[in-house]
């Protein structure tokens, strides 16, 4: 739930909502039909939105990168779904928790260069599909995801340790027997 709404509901435990608080709730409720509309489009047109983006993406990366591309695309699908739900709930906190996971996956799999191409292409496609008015509703969560994933954030820890002169490549497959 949007934190403002959540605090409104929590604070009103011992009293009725005042006029301002009721307005906040009312505004959200009034926006729900439009949000549902955008959500349905994103859900029903998911493949049609993403396939042109994927096609263009593949032109910019070699065929040998297919596995990494697939991983990047799946991560991108996850982030778009998180944006859609975050938009529907009007809850950036919902998106934030998912971004951290998606960002970690990006780091673990070295997908930064793929995402640098993917998200601008996706934004173009979303603008085309949704149009300006509907895109406005999605803009907040989409920019939240886009700026998190395209920022150079070295503060979030990765599975590998901080840079050190003799750090080998992280163990990839789940097989620690050979490690020990």
């Amino acid at each position, binding site marked *: 739930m949007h934190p403002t709404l959540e605090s409104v509901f929590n604070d009103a435990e011992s009293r009725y909502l005042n006029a301002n608080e009721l307005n906040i709730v009312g505004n959200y409720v009034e926006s729900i039909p439009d949000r549902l509309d955008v959500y349905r489009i994103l859900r029903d047109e*998911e*493949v049609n939105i*993403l*396939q042109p983006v*994927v*096609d263009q993406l*593949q032109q910019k990366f070699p065929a040998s990168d*297919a596995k990494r*591309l*697939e991983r990047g*695309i*799946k991560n991108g*699908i*996850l982030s778009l*779904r*998180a944006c859609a739900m975050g938009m529907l709930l009007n809850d950036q906190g*919902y998106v934030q*928790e*998912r971004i951290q*996971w*998606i960002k*970690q*996956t990006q780091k*673990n*799999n070295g997908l930064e260069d793929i995402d640098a191409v993917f998200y601008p292409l996706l934004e173009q496609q979303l603008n085309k599909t949704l149009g300006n008015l509907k895109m406005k509703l999605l803009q907040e969560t989409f920019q939240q995801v886009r700026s998190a994933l395209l920022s150079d954030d070295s503060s979030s*820890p990765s*599975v*590998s*340790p901080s840079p*050190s002169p*003799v*750090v*080998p490549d*992280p*163990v*990839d*497959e*789940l*097989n*620690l*027997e050979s*490690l*020990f």
Partner: protein
Amino acid sequence: MISVADLLVDGRIPGNYFATDAYVHSDLELGLLENRRGDRLLAIPDTLIRAIYAGLEKETGQATRLVLFNCGRWWGKNFYARFGEELTDYYGCPLAEMPMSDFIQSLKQCWLTHGWGTFDLDQTYQHRGFLIVKVTHSPFASHSPNMSRPVCFLETGVFSSFFSQLAGREVNCIQISCESQGADSNRFLIGLPDRLQGVSEMVEAKVGHEEIMKKLCG
């Protein structure tokens, strides 16, 4: 050519299984906390952890650490089994086929969601056959009595058991730094028993974790 439709198996893209708002459920009528699989969860207050330590100290004295370690071993074995099942069911692939980075990422999130602090895996010394698990904000470190030594016996047991299962061979775990002693995090050194010879003695002698790794790795 990559087809988006083909990437969506049953329309699903697995994400963060242990996301807090998805993993923890409550049943207000029955007074139950459960995970998304229906296994029971329990919220325990800090006071209970302190009481457990105090009770064990009183009744078993120096054996406290062994009791807690063995509890951790048992817990770790079962934790590994459940964790593996949950991941296999959710991601639809056997654990052995799962990329290590995905496994560790899930483990980190699992640790966080359960309120056990933050978990990180340091692979700096993996080429020498050592892994270091780093846990911060451990509830066990913050509520143990002052023992002038590392005190996360439960977690030591959990990791020794968990990583033994994961590696398919017996590995030991020794805590080499502790938040209760002012360290920035709790570090648990994992390796084969014969490679960890002498580490316990270094810990007892209050040798720092960096010094311990220098002596082990040369």
